[in-house]
């Protein structure tokens, strides 16, 4: 039942301290005074508790089970981080306090920046962007500022592989670039030859994820970087897949000039049903002048925000970024250390390859050989044979108490499932997932209706999202 339907006029769950001052009656021009009181729900505290408890129970979450969403890196979110992010000294400070009075916060940000620069092989970093796509926009605006600073005005094209995340082209477009897609090779890698054909003096940047969304490492990355740089363009690293390679290779060492990270993926900050995230952007030294304001710097033993960046792109949001999310990533890195981060990557890749091996026995894998932290299942043959869609398989997985993998992405493989187990899942869980998938493949052959009408055990049955979009209901109609 929706919360508004539980409302009873006059019920209260809030009480202010007793009045000390006599109430001053608001004097606004008559036509600016609110005419109709707010129609918010009126509930007691127990009502509110039960409402949101009931909603919480209807959610799948990492704390409940496996979340094999490819490209999302749904690893375990340590509760230690949440505890630290709840300390008053971090939650109850105002962004306009004197910076001398928030040295703890600034030190956290400074050291986090240093850690992330080390991990990515970058020289300087902004912690301001609130999400991965926000980081992409920031990064692409830096690309733009860089070329313009050199008076190189022709460069209006961003090259993006067809396997890229959807936000890459969207962010590039927002930063004013025309997006040109590069097709992948049969093997799922960047087609070097095609790339060379595209490179010219209108190309501003190549945006790459490495490993890419098929879970493959771009072996030719050094060559790619060379060619891109020779053409006067920059190389942009989408950090969504960094979880595969920490401690193994740094994007900076592969030749990338700009990197954005997703602290809510690689660095264990929780995803919170969609956010808040954090998308820091690192750059090589020659680009640091374009970073947004402020940059956190250290002078002796003092930390301070530096606003004096005349060539900065400006700011992409208010204040310093999602500070509490930064804090969680900082605590994570402190806890893991260099060995822990390296092991995280290794075990993420091990888990992916193990699960890939198990699944390859009954479903086609999109690319041969070793994968990185994720892999793509090509279900087109399966769909053809059974008439059961991959979406149906995904829904059926829910019936077994698991979350479904990412489906229908990357776009280059049709009827696909993209599976990323992350390092925090154990072997038993992977075995169980593979067994469930195998069972569903069997079901698809023997009792396809069961799969096609799935899910059956969830709080609601399959939802009609087509009508929902055709005749959209945006809000509850208040009486």
């Amino acid at each position, binding site marked *: 039942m929706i*919360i508004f339907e539980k409302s009873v006029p006059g019920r209260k769950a809030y009480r202010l301290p007793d009045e000390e*001052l006599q*109430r*001053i009656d608001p004097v*606004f021009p008559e036509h600016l005074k*609110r005419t109709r*009181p707010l129609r*918010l729900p009126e*509930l007691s505290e127990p009502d509110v508790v039960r409402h949101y408890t009931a*909603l*919480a129970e209807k*959610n799948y*979450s990492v704390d409940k089970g496996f979340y094999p*969403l490819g490209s999302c890196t749904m690893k375990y979110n340590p509760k230690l981080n949440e505890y630290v992010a709840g*300390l008053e*000294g971090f*939650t*109850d400070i*105002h962004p306009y*306090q*004197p910076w001398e009075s928030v040295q*703890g916060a600034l030190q*956290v940000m400074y050291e986090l920046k240093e850690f992330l620069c080390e991990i990515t092989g970058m020289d300087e970093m902004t912690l301001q962007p609130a999400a991965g796509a926000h980081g992409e926009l920031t990064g692409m605006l830096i690309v733009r500022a860089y070329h313009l600073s050199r008076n190189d005005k022709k460069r209006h094209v961003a090259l993006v592989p067809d396997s890229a995340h*959807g936000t890459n082209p*969207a962010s590039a477009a*927002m930063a*004013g670039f025309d997006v040109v897609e590069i097709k992948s090779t049969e093997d799922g890698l960047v087609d070097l030859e095609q790339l060379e054909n595209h490179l010219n003096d209108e190309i501003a940047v190549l945006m790459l994820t490495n490993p890419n969304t098929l879970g493959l490492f771009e072996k030719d*990355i050094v060559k790619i970087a060379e060619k891109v740089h020779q053409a006067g363009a920059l190389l942009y690293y989408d950090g969504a897949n960094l979880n595969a390679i920490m*401690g193994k*290779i740094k994007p900076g*060492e592969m030749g990338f000039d700009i990197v954005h990270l997703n602290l809510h993926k690689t660095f264990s900050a929780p*995803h*919170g049903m*969609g956010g808040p995230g954090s998308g820091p952007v690192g750059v090589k030294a020659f680009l640091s002048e374009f970073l947004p304001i402020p940059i956190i710097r250290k002078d002796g033993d003092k930390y301070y925000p530096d606003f004096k960046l005349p060539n900065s792109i400006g*700011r992409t*949001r*208010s*204040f310093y970024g*999602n500070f*509490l999310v930064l804090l969680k990533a900082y605590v994570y890195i402190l*806890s*893991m*250390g*260099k*060995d822990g981060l*390296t092991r995280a990557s290794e*075990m993420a890749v*091990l888990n992916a390859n*193990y699960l890939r091996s198990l699944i390859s026995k009954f479903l086609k894998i999109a690319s041969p050989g070793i994968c990185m932290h994720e892999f793509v299942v090509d279900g087109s043959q399966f769909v053809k044979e059974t008439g059961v869609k991959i979406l149906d398989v995904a829904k059926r997985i*829910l019936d077994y108490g698991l979350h479904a993998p990412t489906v229908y992405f990357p776009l280059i493989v049709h009827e696909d499932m993209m599976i990323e187990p992350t*390092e925090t899942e*154990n*072997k038993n869980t992977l075995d169980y997932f593979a067994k469930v998938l195998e069972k569903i493949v069997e079901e698809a052959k023997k009792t396809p209706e069961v799969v096609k009408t799935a*899910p059956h055990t969830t709080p*609601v049955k399959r*939802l*009609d999202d087509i009508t*929902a*979009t055709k005749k959209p209901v*945006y809000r509850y109609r208040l009486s």
Partner: protein
Amino acid sequence: MNPYIPHTEDEIRQMLEVIGIETVEELYRDIPVTSKNLNLPDGLDEFTVVSKLKNLSLKNMVIEKPNIFMGAGVYAHYIPQIVKFLSSRPEFVTAYTPYQAEVSQGTLQALFEYQTMVCELTGMEVANSSMYDGASALAEAVLMAHRISNKRKVLISRAVHPEYIQTCYTYATAQDIEFETVPVTKSGMTDLAVLKKLIDDDTSAVVVQYPNFFGIVEDLKMIREYADGLVLIVVTEPFALSLLEPPGSFGADIVVGEGQPLGVSMNYGGPGVGFFATLEKYVRKMPGRLIGETKDSEEKTGYVMILQTREQHIRREKATSNICTNHALMAVTNAIFMSILGPQGMREVAERSYTNAHYLAKKLLESGFELVFDGPFYNEFIVRMRSEYDKIWRKLFNNGILAPLPLEWYYSEFKDCALACATEVNTKESIEKLVDLLGRDIV
């Protein structure tokens, strides 16, 4: 071994065997160059981390709530424990974006309810399920206005939050958008005469804040009249809207703002959450994620993400925005907070804030200070302080008072002026003490 990574050596061996390789290193055979080792510290146990981080947290000076007289976009309010209790439920915190609606009804219904509440607050027809913050929400609103109008010029009031304006500039850098600033009158309101003059055929939108950055309540009715035919974008504040007629009633086209006051701690500025509302006719040009109501195969009501064709999963470079990760958890926090306060609580907080701010203003006037503007204000106002106010400000801070914001940080014309703020957390005693100290020669 690491508490978060479950693999035992035995299991690793078994898994390698299934894969058909000998060592973990072989998994990385495609990596071309050998990287230098990470130059990071060794990992720490939890107890050492807690001790280190507690020490760091103590290096941040926390001002007692009654002594906070600064707002400027981030406000100190009381947050009932129940809000934190519910919003920190792991089923909310550790869930992903609701891609599988059937196992995400908690998220989807909570966000649908949030959207409804934002519509009710703003008087608009449709609200999305959150933006990063107020500033980026405004920047996206400007881009949206551009999509709606296909015109270049945006008129933005000088009394819009300066960081919001900066953010608009950055977002619009690469777009064919040009900004002109509209000054304020001596009442502190956007100068409508100037506004009128600046409007031309190429004008897309007008951006005002309500109440504005100087605390003054703009006359949206007049602004709407003057900005006839233009996209009217209003930045606003949720508590003020329980006293003020919502922008929607005056014909605003897009209403945005910061949701931090609704149950989110100050968090050194983030995460907060942006809200974003508009009219149904513009919905396909709206950025961000939208939740809609629908039915399941047994006709039971449920909720799903709708109009995803606007989003970058599908339209890629043609998407209405690049927003993917948003601030869902904070949006739900807002909804929980509003459910606890209810209409009466919201109004009481607004009225208490109003009373405290006006009492502060009265006391300042009695002490010989003057208010810079004479327009009606809600809970913030600009007061002219003694000279070298920034030094006084720092001094007060060291005495445990977060005094009104020195405005010259952002406005050279407001030398020695300060943006004062009061909310329900201030007390008679703390207000009187502030005024007393400001009146003394303390620098």
